[in-house]
């Protein structure tokens, strides 16, 4: 019978591995493409995974100060994705 802390640790490891693999796979997608849309989406996925990584780091180190960084990325990370998308679609991102 494992206690809660051990379970917590195992869950953390699993989550880290899962997100790490997701991140690597997203990156592979980013490199092979084939077109720009795929790459932008891959980058967006990487942003989402990065939020996850930061939250996990916060849990692992037992601190809350990291969550704001995650919040900021969650709130503003999509802006660059939108900008990329607008660039691909319209060329001019502010018109």
């Amino acid at each position, binding site marked *: 019978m494992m206690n809660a802390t051990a379970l917590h640790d195992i869950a953390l490891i699993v989550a880290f591995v899962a997100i790490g693999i997701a991140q690597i796979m997203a990156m592979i997608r*980013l490199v092979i493409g084939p077109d720009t849309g795929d790459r932008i989406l891959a980058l967006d996925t990487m942003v989402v995974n990065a939020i996850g990584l930061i939250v996990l780091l916060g849990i692992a180190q037992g601190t809350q*100060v990291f969550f704001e960084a995650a919040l900021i990325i969650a709130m*503003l990370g999509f802006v660059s994705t939108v900008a990329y998308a607008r*660039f691909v679609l319209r060329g001019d991102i*502010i018109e």
Partner: protein
Amino acid sequence: MSLFIIVALPFLGALLPGLMNTAGRAACAGVTFTVTAAALIGLLTNAPAVLSGQVVTAGFEWLPLLGLNVTLMLDGLGFFFACLILGIGLLIITYARFYLSRDDNMGEFFTYLLLFQGAMVGIVLSDNILLLLVFWELTSLSSFLLIGYWKHLPEGRQGARMALTVTGMGGLAMIGGMLMLGQIAGSYDLSVILQNREAIQESPLYLPALILILLGCFTKSAQFPFHFWLPHAMAAPTPVSAYLHSATMVKAGIFLMARMWPVLSGTPEWFVIVTTAGLVTMVLGAVIALFKHDLKALLAFSTVSHLGLITMLLGTGTAFGAMAAVFHILNHATFKAALFMSAGIVDHEAHTRDIRRLGGLRRLMPVTFVIATLAALSMAGIPLLNGFLSKEMMLEEAWRTELYGAPWLVPALATLGSLFSAAYCFRLIGHTFLGPVRDDYPARPHDPGAGMWLPPAILVVMVVVIGIAPFLAEPFVKLVTASVLGEAAEVPKAYFKIWHGLVPALYMSIAAVVGGLIVMAIFAPMLRLWDAAPRPEAKAIFDRLIAAVVRLAERIALPLHNGAFTRYGAVFAVTVFVVGYYAWSTGTVGPATRAPQPADPVAIAGWLMLVAATLGMVFLHRNRLLSLILIGIVGLMVSVGFVFFSAPDLAMTQITVEVVTIILLLLALNFLPNRTPIESTVLHRTRDAVVSVAGGLAATALAYHYLLRDAVVTPISEFHLANSYKGGGGTNVVNVILVDFRGFDTFGEIIVLGIAALLIYALTEALLNGPVRARLLNRLPDQPRAGDMHPMMMVILTRVTMPVVLMVGFFIFLRGHNEPGGGFIAGLVVSIAVVMQYMASGFGWASARLRYPYHGIIGTGVLIAGLTGIGSWFVGKPFMTTDFTYVRIPPFNEFELATAMLFDLGVFLTVVGAVMLSLESFSRLARRAHMPDVEHPMDIDPSRGDPPVASVPTPAKEGV
């Protein structure tokens, strides 16, 4: 009135003409006149003390460790010059009010004039020679602006450049000389320097210091061989010529020679250099002046000649010479300013200054004729006018002076100079005013209004009064002479008289006047001879010299600065690599003090991704969009890395900067092709690869080295950690460092940030107003474009997100002092929130809702930050001392208020303004002619009830 106020008044007053510009020309001139009059009255309140022989002083310490203090002193000499500057200034301002046309920007003119006036008064009242140098440079700069005032005239611009080059060069030399002088005397205060005559003249540095200071004086006072700039400066409006180039600025060099006379004069070096330069200038100037057809050019060369005369008198090193010099400075200022103004009147009314086209103006302009004739006769040295008196004294001094062992040389040259001087005066009168009335003047000449003839008339009254009753000027001139001489010599006993008896000077004077009349009689053949004779053209020589210097500079600079960033990067990297390797291989390397930490798989994965993204960049960088996406990975992983190493502030900053950068680069990419073309050879690329690999490895090695060791024994971070809460009242050390410990740094940085944003704005404005405008407006997109400009989903989404983001920004800002956050991050967050609106709803829509211009926001931010810093002065603390307290407003929790927060507000506003201004400038470039700015936030909006087809621009319309 305090001397500070006298010096400060013109500078402060310089703000007024610009403000009064819209209130009309009379108001603009009136306010300038009032400022000058106030300074003059202030000066005159000190007159009783000065006339009784006291020296009025005022001063405070500015940079005492450098010896640079704001110390002013007012003695006879300073009083005399300050009176000249302000008194003639009043006349010039009156004259300029009527001289300038409606097309001229009067506010600009009077602003420059007051700046110049303040700088001149500063020179003559400075006690500290370093302060004097500051004012000296200011006169060069302000005279540059004044000479080039008519910006549409190429001669004006070229003349201004030439004047600035020559006088600026002299000023540089003088800085060297003054520093040497200060080193010898052990103080930069004139009052101390003037006491150290023996020490200075015995020092081995005396000769270099003398030569350097004289270079400054000679360039400023247009002495041979630096005289050539003055005639070219005549492209300035006539009030400027009358003020700067006859009465004040060109006398600055002479003032300084007089000021330094007690310590520098009396040596053979001084005598030979100064007397020779003065003599040559006097004769050369007089001869050239005779053959000039432009009235102002004639007067310019005559000024050169008279400045030479004064220089020669100072050069002789006798007390009598100094007295004659002082007297002639006074006389020359009166008659020459009057002459310049008369020339300006002729130009103004007859629309030409060419003597060959004039003549017979006696009947048409009787008032001007009387003024100009009296002034010119005074200049020629005719008795009963003041010029005669000082010229007699000059000739008497020349008679006694022996140069190069030839007793006849100086008297002969002085007589020759006077002869030509008389000749050009006669020509000025004869060829302009006398003779028959012509019928081919460019305009019908007539006397101007009183506003233009009264100022020179007042000066001519002085010319006559001093000329008839020299005893009136005598006590004052002797007082000034006494302060020139200092303790070096006694004031001569000689009285100022019209009739000295049959002395040699009288014969020389008669010879000069008679000779002048003879020259006039044979002027026509002489002119033919002069025109036929080859002579060097100063401007051509100057231009060639400048071109040669530019070529030399290019030869040195261009190989180093060829514009290729790779070359700069390579030079820098290789230098650092070599120097670093040398340091590492010759210095002692301590053992590692820290053990490496174990790496967990997540960190390794992150690191691998960073490496992979960087490698990808290297191979894919020619595809611009792809490389931008890869940079996105790097930014993201670096942010995660910052969090991993417990630096959430940095992570937040990194991610926000990342977003802004990507938007900025995407805006720029809109104007660039998708792929970077290959522009360098294989060899080049190999070189760059080698250098960059070496640089990268070296950076890695350095980082690894320091990761295992402590860089310094006690790092400064310990101080910051210990004092952050105690001293700065914040627990977020990063923020306290930014706004408190190194607040001054941050203040400088936000100013730079603001300047950079304004520069981007200025550049885009210049582009949009230039020839590129049409090309930008009519540019066709290089790829098919999707239809929806402003999709509804994005508009709604960003509209909903906006308040949330703003609240987060506000939160991050408020608690920045104690927890991760602060003005910088908050500024970035808020600007991203605003940019979202721009992207979603369009430039036109967002701009229409913009209430404050971004420039204003930048300015407000910098002002708030600066004022917060200044605020600590009011409680007697140094600049930017912070204070904090805790307040409690029910029902909120107790919270902290720190002055640093106000400073942080300044940072916040500047960041918002700068980011938005640069992004907005870029997107303005992308406006296109056939794409009108839409008022509606969305292309398709059911609530508007428009037929949807009409408002949707189809792809076909958008041009393929």
